[in-house]
C-alpha cells in the first residue's frame, strides 16, 4: 500500500533592518508550510500569534493555517530606530 506524505513548502523570509522580504506571502488554508526566518544583519524576530509563528534569529516553524484571512507579522526582536515599522503580511487563501 502506498503512503502519501504531504511535504511542506518552505517559505524563506529574509529580515534586515528594518524590513522583511518578501513583505507579503500568500499561504493556502489547510496546507502545511514551513516558514523560515533568515536574519541577514542582526537578530530579528518574526511573530504572528494567530498563525502560531514565533521565530527568532535564524529559525523555522511548520504551520498549517486553519483560517483564511490577512495576518500581520512583526519583528519582535528590537533592532533599532525603525524597529516599530518592521512588519509583513501573510494572506491565507
Amino acid at each position, binding site marked *: 500500500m502506498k503512503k502519501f506524505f504531504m511535504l511542506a513548502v518552505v517559505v524563506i523570509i529574509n529580515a534586515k533592518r528594518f524590513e522583511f522580504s518578501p513583505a507579503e506571502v500568500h499561504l493556502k488554508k489547510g496546507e502545511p508550510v514551513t516558514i523560515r526566518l533568515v536574519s541577514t544583519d542582526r*537578530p530579528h*524576530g518574526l*511573530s504572528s*500569534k494567530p498563525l502560531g509563528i*514565533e521565530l*527568532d534569529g535564524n529559525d523555522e516553524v511548520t504551520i498549517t493555517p486553519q483560517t483564511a484571512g490577512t495576518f*500581520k507579522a*512583526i519583528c*519582535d*526582536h*528590537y*533592532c*533599532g*530606530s525603525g524597529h*516599530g515599522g518592521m512588519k509583513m503580511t501573510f494572506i491565507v487563501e
Partner: protein
Amino acid sequence: MDRRSFLKFSAASLGAGALLQFTPAQAAIPFFTRRNGEAPSPFSFVQLSDTHVGFSGPPDPLGTKAFERAVDTINALDPLPDLVLFTGDLTHDSEDASEHAARMKRFKEIASRLRVKKRFHVPGEHDSALDGGTLFKEHFGESHYAFDHKGVHFVGLDNVSSGKPMVGKEQIAWLQRDVARFSKTTPIVVFTHRPLFDLQPEWEWFTTDGDDVMNVLAPFDNVTILYGHIHRAHHRTIGNAQHHAARSLIFAFPDPATAAEKKALPFDKEHPFKNLGIREVSSSPIAIDDIELTAREISGTEGVQQLRKGGVL
C-alpha cells in the same frame, strides 16, 4: 479575608505617571502590625514611564520638558510620595554608545531633582535591547530585583533586555524563589516595561512568557502590575491581578480598539502636554485629581470611572 478587605488600593496610571496610594484596610492591620504594636502608615508612590530622554523629532518637539514638568509636579505634592518607580524607556536608544550614555546621564540629572529620594528603575527596550542591558546596569544597577516597603512587596522585572518581549526562564525561577516566603495575602506590586498579557500583539504590546510570570503570582490574592510601553493609560483585571499602564512623558499612542495603525498621536501646540499629566490618587475618601501639565488644573472624574470599571475601587 478577600483582596478588597485586605487592602484598600487606589491606583491610577497617570499622565506623567501614576501616583498610587496604599491604605491597609482595617481588617489587614493585624497582619501589618509591627512588633511594637503600631500599624504601618498608609503611603503613596508615583509611577513614571517612557521619558525617552534623547528622543527628538515628530510628533513631540518638546524633548524632556514633560519629564521636567512632571518632576516639578511631584515635588509639589503634599505629602511627598514615598517612592518613584520608573517603568522603562528612560532613554531613547542611539547607535552611538557614548551618545546613549550621555542620554542616561541626562535622565539621571533630571530625576535627581526629585525630592523623592527612593527611586527605582526597570529598563525598556530603548534602554537595553541593543546592548543586552550593559549600559542600563552601569547607570541604574540590576534590571530585576525586589524590595519591601511598609508591608508591600515590590518586584522589578526586566522583559526587554534580551531584545525579545520576554522575561526568561532564569528570571521567572528567581521570581518563584523570591515570592515563596510570602503569605498569599501579601500585597505584591510588580513593575515592568511591557504588558504581561496579550494587549495588542500586532503592536508588540505583549510579553511572550507573561503567562508564566502570572502563573507564579496566581496564588497571591493581591497583585498589582504596573507597566509602561504603550504610552497610554490602560487598566485590566485578570484573575487576582490588576494591570495598570502609565502614559508616557513624550507622546501618546492611540487606542488600538479604534486605530488601525500604531501611529503616535499628533502634537497639539495649543495643548503641548495633552495626554501627559499626573493623576494623583488619595484615599479616605478616595479622590483622584488629574493634573494636566500645562494647565495645572484638576480635570476630573474620568479616572475614577475608569478605576471603578476596572474593579479597583
